[in-house]
């Protein structure tokens, strides 16, 4: 009985607290590259994306499976 009576109270509370994460508007061809949040650089002496100033850079998104 206790559980059932709590349910109608608990559900709206959860719904009110929930948030919808919206992706940022995507930058397209011709737009400035949004500042990348990169953590580690390998096989290079670059320490930040700014170190690649004036260079042509390819950023590839891939995954292993």
């Amino acid at each position, binding site marked *: 009985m206790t559980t059932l009576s709590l349910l109608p109270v608990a559900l709206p509370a959860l*719904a*009110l607290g*929930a*948030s*919808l*994460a*919206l*992706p*940022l*508007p*995507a*930058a*397209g*061809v*011709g*737009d*400035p*590259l*949004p500042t990348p949040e990169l953590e580690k650089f390998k096989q*290079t*002496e*670059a*320490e*930040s994306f*700014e*170190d*690649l*100033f*004036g*260079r*042509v*850079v*390819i*950023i*590839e*998104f*891939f*995954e292993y499976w």
Partner: protein
Amino acid sequence: MRAVGARGFPSAVVVDAQGNIAYSGHPASINASVLKPLLKGALKTPMYEWPKSCSKVAKALRKGNLGDAIKASAKIEEEHPDIAAAVVGMADGRLATMEKAAKAGDWLKVQSTGESLKDAVKVWPGGEKVTAILAELKGDKEAQAILKAQEKVLKLTAGEVKASRYDKTKKELEKIRDKHKGTAAERDARAAIERLKASRSR
């Protein structure tokens, strides 16, 4: 990844020497015809290998201060014309983006690009054009209204939207979309509504 509109694996973007996205798509399609035109004017030496005489330019660029970078690059112009040209080229590229945005009536982009050039305005020839475009924006009531609407779209959909505010946010975006037909504000509002809908269906 989403910030550049990449939706699946593998995806790739190519960034040109001015820091703009030159290609976005499947990495297998990146070939010589994509890269060759971009390499013209690109620096051969990465910043971390620049000579000591260019350290002030590098320091300013790492801080994101284009104005200081331009000032410092004027002193190394004779010795390292390629680096000096690349620094000015970045400011010129941003000005081109700003001019294109002003022509298209995308006043939010005009304002944000102008902001990124504010340090450079007094030390670079393109500065006068930047000032003129910003003055045009300031003096144009219609442009101001569009800018305000674009800013509101951004504010309404920045980061997270509480589920309880979904309907209200959608209505406000629809109001902007309908009020500013044929403008960049309508385009932004339409895109934001789509993103809002997609976030709910995930």
